[in-house]
């Protein structure tokens, strides 16, 4: 239904564009071109930029993140755990079509301004000469001081300035130069993220915030709802998006839609047949979401839910969590459950299923935490388990990512070495550069599509009318009315206890590249 609505909305925009044709509608024009049946034909130019997972890449941890969308992420989370054993997916026919449509994007950081007009101060953070954007960055130094994480990922300010410089060297966005500011925050608690939100929106008065306040939804809500400022590259669900008073775009799949996508992909792959008795499990915080999205999606796919369980112990209370899971195991055993759909990060319970000898098939759309839960269990080979992922894993890059990294190296003079090849004690520039490439490219393309009269409204119109979009490390992506989460290209993955680093187990791709928008 959503796709149908999206189609009608885009169709309406197409009609409007055909009737109009003034500069303000050029973004719509462009979108309609790319969504039209004619766009199925291979484009004559830039075929090399189509995303093509390399032979080594694919699985690793390129999963679908539901809340860990740091700029440095390519959509998964624990990139460092990527493996070389995972198989690459073969793009499906639909995929090929979308890839080719995606190739319509401008070369990275060389945006074509959609429309003409005199430049002026059109919105907060936008002057005749400049556009100011803010980017939150995780404070690894403070995390290190707290003894939590020892990571050296460079100064993200350098990355942003280099990328901005590349855009500015190419004429900026519709003639406006891009200015960047960053704010360091901690990915727990909300104090630093709220302060960061206020810093960007009140102190610096940026036009848009690029990248999320990772793991701190309130920080993102502060930007979009309280301060009516655009936020690009941050996760949301339908409720968050509905509350936003400004454009909000996610690079990956929305935290609720991912459940539908997962079920659809499983259905398409025939993995929902013969599941036996099925249980659905979630945390209390997402109980309603799972009841309203996952359960109906499964039922619509012909899966009958025999048991539903909800865990409500505080995170970190291993003892209480394990005790409750042991009872769940007994519930599953009594109901002869063969399959359990586990939502979110409630994966530590898999150990209790093992301990209690419950042999079930597991499904979870959260690639990274699921991988962590299975790999950390006492018997990694115990379960047959499936998840959803992105075709880009580990250090995988597509051409657009490579172009972005080249631009960074050119502007900063810093050599970027893939994380897996990085000598010890060297700064890992690769991970953050790749992350900022994604969100910065997204912004540049959208802002250019919004035209010279850059406001929240024109940016929203550009998003609504964009259609397929080419992004670093995205196989297929698109934006449109009601579709503000970009990723379309996903793969199904199956747990292989022998795969991965030290053969400690990892997910491997088992499906063709799936275009969920197709």
């Amino acid at each position: 239904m959503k796709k149908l609505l999206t189609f009608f909305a885009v169709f309406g925009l197409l009609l409007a564009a055909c009737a109009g044709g003034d500069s303000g509608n050029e973004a719509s024009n462009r979108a309609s071109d790319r969504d039209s049946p004619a766009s199925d034909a291979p484009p004559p130019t830039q075929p090399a930029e189509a995303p093509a997972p390399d032979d080594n890449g694919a699985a690793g941890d390129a999963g679908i993140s539901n809340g860990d969308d740091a700029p440095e992420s390519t959509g998964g989370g624990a990139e460092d755990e990527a493996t070389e054993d995972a198989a690459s997916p073969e793009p499906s026919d639909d995929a090929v079509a979308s890839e080719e449509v995606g190739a319509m994007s401008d070369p990275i950081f060389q945006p074509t301004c959609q429309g003409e007009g005199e430049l002026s101060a059109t919105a907060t953070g936008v002057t005749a000469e400049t556009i100011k954007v803010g980017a939150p960055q995780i404070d690894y130094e403070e995390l290190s001081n707290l003894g939590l994480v020892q990571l050296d990922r460079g100064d993200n300010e350098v990355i942003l300035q280099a990328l901005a410089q590349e855009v500015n060297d190419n004429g900026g966005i519709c003639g406006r130069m891009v200015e960047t500011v960053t704010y360091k925050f901690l990915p727990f608690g909300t104090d630093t993220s709220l302060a960061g939100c206020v810093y960007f929106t009140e102190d610096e008065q940026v036009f848009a915030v690029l990248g999320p306040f990772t793991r701190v939804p309130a920080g993102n809500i502060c930007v979009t709802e309280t301060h009516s400022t655009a936020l690009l590259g941050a996760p949301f669900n339908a409720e968050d998006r509905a509350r936003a008073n400004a454009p909000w775009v996610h690079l990956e799949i929305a935290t609720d839609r991912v459940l539908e996508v997962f079920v659809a992909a499983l259905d398409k792959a025939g993995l929902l047949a013969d599941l036996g008795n099925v249980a659905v499990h979630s945390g209390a915080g997402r109980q309603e979401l799972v009841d309203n999205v996952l359960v109906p999606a499964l039922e619509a796919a012909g899966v009958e839910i025999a048991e539903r369980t909800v865990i409500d112990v505080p995170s970190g209370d291993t003892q209480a969590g394990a005790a409750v899971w042991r009872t769940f195991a007994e519930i599953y055993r009594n109901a002869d459950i063969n399959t359990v759909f586990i939502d979110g990060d409630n994966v530590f319970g898999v150990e209790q299923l093992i301990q209690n000898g419950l042999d079930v098939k597991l499904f979870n759309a959260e690639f990274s935490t699921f991988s962590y839960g299975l790999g950390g269990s006492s018997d990694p080979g115990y379960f047959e388990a499936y998840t959803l992922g992105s075709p880009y894993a580990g250090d995988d890059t597509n051409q657009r990512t490579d172009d972005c990294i080249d631009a960074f190296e050119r502007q900063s003079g810093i050599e970027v070495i893939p994380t897996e090849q990085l000598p010890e004690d060297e700064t890992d520039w690769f991970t953050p550069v790749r992350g900022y490439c994604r969100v910065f490219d997204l912004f540049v393309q959208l802002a250019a599509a919004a035209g010279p009269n850059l406001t929240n409204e024109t940016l929203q119109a550009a998003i609504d009318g964009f259609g397929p979009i080419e992004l670093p490390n995205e196989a297929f992506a698109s934006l449109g009315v009601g579709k503000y989460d970009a990723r379309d290209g996903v793969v199904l993955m199956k747990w292989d206890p022998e795969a991965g680093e030290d053969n400690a187990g990892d997910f491997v791709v088992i499906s063709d590249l799936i275009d969920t928008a197709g």
Partner: protein
Amino acid sequence: MVAFTLTSQIVYLGVIDGLLIGFLALGIVLIYRASGVINFAVGSLGVLSASLLALLVLNYGWPFWPAVIVSVVAGGLIAAALELTVITRLFRAPRVILLVATIGIAQLCELLQVALPDIDVSMANRYPVALSGRWEILGLRVRGVELIVIIVVPVLTAALTYYLQRTAQGRAIRAAASNPDLARLTAISPKIISTITWIIAGLLAAVALILVAGINGQPSGFRSLGPATLVQVLAAALIGRLRNFPAAMIAGVALGLLRSLLVFNWPTTAGLYDGSLFLIVIATTLVAGRRLTGRDESFSFVPTTRPLPHAVARLWWVRHSSRIGIGLLIAGAAILPFLVTLASRQLLFSEVLLFALIGISLVVLSGWTGQISLGQAALAGIGGLTTAALVAGRDIGVGVGEASFTLALPDIHFLLALLVGAAVTGAVAVVIGLGALRIRGFHLAIATLALALLGQQFLWRRPFLSGDSYTVSLPRAAGPVDLADQRTYYFFSLIALVVVIVLVARMRATGVGRRWLAVRDNSTAASAYTISPSRAGIQAFVVSGVIAGLGGGLLAGLYVSIGLTERFQLQDSIEVVAIAVIGGAGTVVGPILGALWIVGLPALWPANELVPLLTSSVGLLILLMYFPGGFAQVVLTGRDRFLGWYAARLPEPEPPPKREVASVVSRSDAVAVTGPVLVAEEVTVTFGGLTAVDDASIRVHSGEVVGLIGTNGAGKTTLMNAISGFVPCSGRIELEGRAIEKMAADRRAALGLGRAFQQSRLFPDLTVLETLAVAAESRQRTSFTTAVAHLPNGYRRDQAQRAHAHDIADFLGLGPYADKFTSELSTGTRRIVELGCLLALEARVLCLDEPTGGVAQREVEAFAPLLLSIKDQLGAAMLVIEHDMPMIMQISHRIYCLEAGRVIAMGSPAEVRADPAVIASYLGTDERAIRRSGATASAEEAHFPTPTTVLNEGET
């Protein structure tokens, strides 16, 4: 009708879970029995051992059993080390401080565990256990590690019980727990006992956590017991009355079973068990409260603001030094946003102010009433989320099932919503406090910890509070002032903080504040002066709740977007405690300093490497060890030293003129009583299986002095306690013809039953004048409402109360001591203050327990005339326990002699003195003792000087 389904496997799983809960509860009970403190590090102590076992076996290839032994012993050694470095140093500190220290120890253990090497899971990813495998036994699926739990837990529980009940060391632990001073006299060092107890607790925790880790299966990722488990463990210990090992174990098993039952039958009802646990904790404190007895000790948080030296007390700047200090802080706070203009910084400054405000809620509760709450952030959450709900005008569901309905609430302005939210929080505090505050001890801490868990696990998700969202919005509505601006909101927060400081400081200065401190310092004595400790506690908790609720509303307004999984969490409550303790919970300035430290430092210097250390558990522990009164102690000590130094340089001021006061009793409500004014008929008091008072009957007639004599342990004090209402008894007790045996002690005191205690500890942190004013509360009660609202008649009453206290002090010659703390007085002077309290109380029957106890013999002779003079002033009857035979024989009209709880003789002093049973039982056959008991004249023949001539300045 609710239908349960239960399988034998679910019962089995519940029992296994419950055994572990119960086993951990034993650790709580053990430490509480030995040192009267709840050990929040009960699980964390064992975490290191559990990790060590995995390390030794998996990383270093040790055989299992040697590794187990080393790990368990390490648990004991770690506990010993912590005891010797932290607990010993705080041995004399109030238990509240010690409790907070255990929270710091818990966090320290977790930090240490993180510092351990990573466990190598390449060889095996299963936690090492003594017995692996899985079998089907009697239809149950049983794992090897579960069998170990079934065997080890009951065996160790029995061994521990045996150790405490039957061994000399165990009895020593119990003796040290019940009376450290007495234990010391019997050559048992409470410090050694404490160390032994902590070692045992460490060993228990090590075994418990190794079992828990074995049950859970995975070797890594186990850092500590989470809050849900901790609340379960505390609830089990509470049900076991914090004393009874078998009861705590049974309660643990019952709770484990309950969880299995609830989860099995309602697997989708989130929060059901946490809600049940909360209700169980509240119900336990309500139902079992009467049977629970707390330790009668001061719960005072140091520091106390000392009276000013006389030489400088009249200097304006000295008298107002506290106000000047606070004023400077406020002035600095007012200037700050003009110096730092970034809105993002001003947001953090506001947060510091509002955490300070919430910290002040703990000053009222902990600093002044001696209770500790571990759920202040939950109360703040109730206030904050209620404020948001009211601003949004959300509907509220009332009732359950078909009997429910929805109440549509109008959306109201932010400012009004703030006040309503605070009031709602105050009401919640009443519900929680009703049970938990009826008893001394840490029951409120457990109840509020359960509330904190309930909040984050259940309450915040209720539709009314959450609006069916996980991030609640609270727009700061524009009204007369646009609060949307960060600087404006900062000033709004500052004004709120200043108003709360002024109101709370004023309240402290009224009779209500004095009542709180009296209850904190000595709840028994407070009861004797008509103050209900539970009522005072509830009043303080309500005020505390209202402040926390207001702070929560303001915080919610500051955040605007309130993440329900991020705000008002249990760790925030612990942070509030840390703010109060680090700053100094005894003064309103303390939380400001604490908030600057805990919230301000990390916010303002995030990149500083020292800041995480200083604000962490390590910083908390170090500060507690050296400055248990927090930063306020440092400041006040500095101030006192400076003023002392300055005063020494000034000429000694002229002493105030001596005031002669002829009478201090103005009672006009005397009841004419023809019969006895006090009747105790067939009174029996039992403690467990021991009968302390056995069918004793005594009568005291109007104006009469009745002596109560007997050997130590004869039951005299117990009988007097029964009469006064401090121990439950059977039998009949009448005061002026009115049955009072069902009444609480404070009610009996209000009817005119005065009581002076053997220990005469009074209120260590109150001055003599304040102590007398506390007693004067009986006749000139400061209304709580008046004090809260700061109404003019409250001020007038306060002035009158102070004047009356001055009169009594002058009447007894206590003028020079008026501003001294009672803890600074000699025993004799303190006893005179206690008698002054009886005057203030205007008691009709005086029950005096060894009024000359601890007084130098040369002063004892002055006491008898003083007692009679006070009796005459009051026109009261007197029941006196006294071992000084000449004195008791001299002042008494009649004497009762008790032996083994029974009255063995009654009559005039001469009759009792000659009674063979008394001679055999008490006086002995020593002729000198008998002669001495009759060596002086009886009361009728005595002539005594007036009180003011008894005590001269400098004398006791």
